[in-house]
């Protein structure tokens, strides 16, 4: 795939060319960056760590209508998804998480809503230059410059963006840019690789998950689960804000005679998640739920799709109200293996 250069002055024109599609980019200030539609004619400034709510919202919205119907009628009407969107400034870990979640949503049969949105959304990534305090993407197969799941990767080389197309959609974007961009020379390629190398070196937090997928089910009754989950509040923060969490609940909502069946994010840390109507709950306390969350990401998902369902974005570590740290948990698991 071609590698091009875009001078930063021409960035607003490049954004201007992406007409016809809704543009989303991280906006807000300080720690509370969120993906939000870019106003007409504006060019988003891409200086931020990472967004608080992951871009998974673009392909797997928190609440999504599956179909609509009138009470008492038989026909159901599925929403017609056709609005194309371009997400600017997606971090490589978030894009990689979409590639991971694709495995599950295409397991035996495709989830029509998810894949329709995946098709409509183009991911323009921005390589990391300043990793966060709790990023550990390099330990779980990712990296500040990884292109997995992205359509186009941009790397900030000072006055130029280094553009790498990854998929046809990425190539299409570059073609649309036309004369704004020029061929990237060898030394730019070297400069880019060197920058990615440097950034990877800055990542201090590491996870050694060697042997965990096979070994962790054996720690079922280990007391580490009790000590690790003792302070857990059982809230949904770590799962709602995790880019690879994909669990959802399905509910019917009725307003007068209009009704819809919709699905919304759900969390395995809530107790109703597995509560039987009889009152029995296979995961009764937060100890079982924490154990299941870690086992799912580092063992069950690996059994089914042989990839770890964690991209090391660090959100669950940053945002946990009581500082339950997945890196520390995995360290204890590794020691107890």
């Amino acid at each position, binding site marked *: 795939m071609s590698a091009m250069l875009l001078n930063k002055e021409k960035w607003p024109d490049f954004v201007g060319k992406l007409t016809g599609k809704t543009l989303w980019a991280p906006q807000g200030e300080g720690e509370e960056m969120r993906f939000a539609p870019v106003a007409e004619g504006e060019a988003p400034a891409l200086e931020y760590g990472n967004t608080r709510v992951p871009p998974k919202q673009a392909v797997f919205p928190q609440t999504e*209508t599956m179909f609509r119907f009138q009470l008492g009628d038989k026909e159901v009407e599925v929403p017609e998804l056709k609005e194309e969107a371009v997400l600017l400034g997606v971090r490589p870990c978030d894009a990689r998480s979409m590639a991971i979640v694709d495995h599950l949503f295409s397991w035996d049969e495709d989830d029509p809503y998810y894949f329709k949105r995946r098709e409509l959304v183009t991911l323009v990534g921005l390589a990391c230059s300043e990793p966060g305090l709790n990023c550990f993407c390099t330990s779980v197969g990712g990296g500040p410059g990884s292109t997995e799941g992205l359509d186009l990767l941009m790397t900030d080389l000072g006055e130029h963006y280094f553009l790498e197309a990854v998929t046809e959609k990425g190539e299409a974007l570059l073609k649309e840019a036309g004369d704004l961009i020029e061929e990237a020379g060898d030394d730019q390629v070297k400069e880019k690789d060197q920058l990615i190398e440097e950034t990877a070196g800055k990542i201090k937090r590491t996870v050694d998950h060697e042997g965990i997928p096979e070994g962790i089910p054996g720690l079922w009754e280990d007391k580490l689960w009790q000590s690790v989950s003792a302070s857990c509040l059982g809230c949904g923060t770590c799962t709602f804000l995790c880019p690879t969490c994909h669990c959802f609940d399905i509910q019917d909502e009725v307003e007068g005679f*209009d009704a819809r069946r919709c699905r919304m994010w759900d969390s395995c840390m809530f107790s109703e998640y597995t509560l039987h109507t009889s009152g029995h709950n296979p995961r009764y306390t937060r100890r079982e739920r924490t154990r299941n969350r870690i086992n799912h990401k580092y063992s069950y998902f690996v059994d089914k799709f042989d990839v770890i369902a964690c991209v090391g974005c660090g959100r669950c570590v940053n945002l946990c109200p009581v500082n339950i740290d997945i890196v520390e948990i995995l360290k204890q698991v590794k020691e107890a293996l």
Partner: protein
Amino acid sequence: MSANYEPNIVAFLCNWCSYAGADLAGTSRAQHPSNVHVIRVMCSGRVNPLYVVNALQQGADGVLVSGCHPGDCHYMEGNYYARRRLGMLKDLLEFAGVDPRRFHMSWVSASEGHKWKEVVEKTVEDAREAGPFEGFKRQQIDW
């Protein structure tokens, strides 16, 4: 505000006093607006403040809770709890940005047919001034 906007009022009336008062207003032919949908409850103390929030969500433009005058309560203290509880709710709704004219509370005894007429007129007039409630009304089920 559209010309023919007719406010939609939901009223929780305590069975022993206000419901009887409203009934008296009816039997004595007191002319008062008909926008009020009455829900009979056994005591104003029974009204869970979330009924008010839920009513506003489902399309009410104004909510009224009416009970017995302090001291007349069939269950002795139901209206006292309601007064304190719904007083809190009124402050909270106002602070959250809901027009205070949308939520009223009143004491109407079984013999005060005329007072019921005035309370309904005031509630409907306030809701008409405040306009249709958009705030946190549930959106039409679309996408």
